[in-house]
């Protein structure tokens, strides 16, 4: 299977919700091959505007297509939820 690609938008990287989302995501995807770009919208509000981010944590899967969007801290998520 080709490499999966994810963009994760967080509102600050040190708060509990952001940390939880990141660790839950990594846990769910532990057995697959993926790229993850993390964007802190506190530092990049213009990116949030362009991507239309409203709720956070916000995840976009660009590969494999079609593009999918997810929100939440991804607690209790399995790999199948994202792929």
């Amino acid at each position, binding site marked *: 299977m080709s490499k999966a690609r994810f963009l994760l*938008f967080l*509102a*600050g990287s040190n708060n509990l*919700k952001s940390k*939880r*989302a990141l660790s*839950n995501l990594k846990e769910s995807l532990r057995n697959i091959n993926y790229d993850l770009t993390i964007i802190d*919208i*506190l530092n990049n*509000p*213009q990116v*949030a*505007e362009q991507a*239309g*981010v*409203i*709720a*956070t*944590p*916000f995840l976009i899967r660009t590969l494999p297509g079609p*593009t*999918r*969007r*997810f*929100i*939440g*801290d*991804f*607690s*209790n*998520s399995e790999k199948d*939820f994202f792929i």
Partner: protein
Amino acid sequence: MKNIKKIPSGIDGFDTLSMGGIPEKRMTLLSGTPGSGKSTFCVQFLIGGIELSNEPGVFITFEESPEDIIINMKDFGLDIQKYKYSGFWEFVDISPRIEDDFLVRGDYDLSGLIIRINDAVQKINAKRVVLDSIAVLFNKFPDKSIVRKEIIRLKSCLKSLSVTSIITMEQYEEFGKDSHYNILDFVSDNVILLQNTIFEEHRRRTIEILKYRGVPHKKGRESFTIKKNEGIIIISFERNPNELPLRRERKSTGYIELDDMMGGGFFQGSSILISGQTGTGKTLITLLMLDGSLKNGEKCIMFNFEESREQILQKARNWDIDLERAENEGIFMMSCTYPESQGIEELIVDMKSKIQSFRPDRIYIDSISALERITSYLTFRQSLINLFLFIRENDIIAIFTTTTPTFSDHFNKEMGHISTLADAIILLRYFEHDGLMTRGIGILKMRDSNHSKHFIEYTIDNQGIKILKPIEGRIGIFDSF
């Protein structure tokens, strides 16, 4: 108590209604049925800030795309693009996108929204913010308690930014029925309600301030209209025109024979009602006065709601009055409208703007009975008060005609109320006198002045109206006065 400042709203008439404008650095909820003018109100509020106080504004749109808003507002003559280029206007676009579906798992908040708003406000140093319409968030996100919590957080964010904000909400049911939305009512210090309702068979737009926490405001609904090129205009009547002092200078009525009866003429800035039965010569007397006032060098406008331009020109020609020449000389304007073609609010606004641009000394309105047909009595009266006030403030003499519908009534109930607004009333009546039908003219009232108390007989012939002598002795049967 803290002294709360109000800032100019940018909406014509709203600052009178609200006694100063929108409370500064607070959140105001603008609630209304679909199509009641909420978005237009918001756009005018931001433009008002830019134009009146040099304050930049942020428009957070949840339904329409920024492109659509820009296009729609062009219809009202509002050029948003211009303000965007000059850095006075910023959009935050929360409107639906094609790729908008998402899956939810676990806890989330609306930090994305709050960060974007914060960023836009700081980027242009905005002082005014509108959110139109925030209720969309309740449909977008499944967890209502999160949305409620985030709206409270958003409010404190706006507070820390020291901006004055308006949030809008669609109102489908009677106020307060839907519990999701109570949060908005709860977080807002101020609530304004816009409605577009059917009242006595006529559509009527109204605005009402339901709550202005700790700040004085006027109570009750006011009518408003949304006009091309001008946006929302509120028809507010803040005081009774009778309370404004009358000027003491008199002007000839325009028809010399009437001047004596009127104690010398009409007062500047007064409203005169000519009430008469069908066929008593109201239009003729109006034309004769018009002719005289034009010859005395007064600029005049005639608003006609019953006859076409051609009919009036022809009638005038029959009495050797050349209205077209007066028009060409720039001292006369004739406006013939079929009142059914628009609402009364729109009509009044239109009359006012014609008066403002032509600056007449005197206006003739033939007849206000035609206006009464197109609206409910309440709106009719409000609109007339508004017009009378405007006339008084602009120092114009206004002559209105009204048709008394039957032979037995001097005034029907409605006209009775209107008559209290007029400064002077001239009655034209049929009388039976010594077995003959005659016409009589009388002054029913003239505020602050002596005037003839007699009914005076007059005749109409090809020379015009001839005022004869007071009617003496017993007169009657048509008369119930």
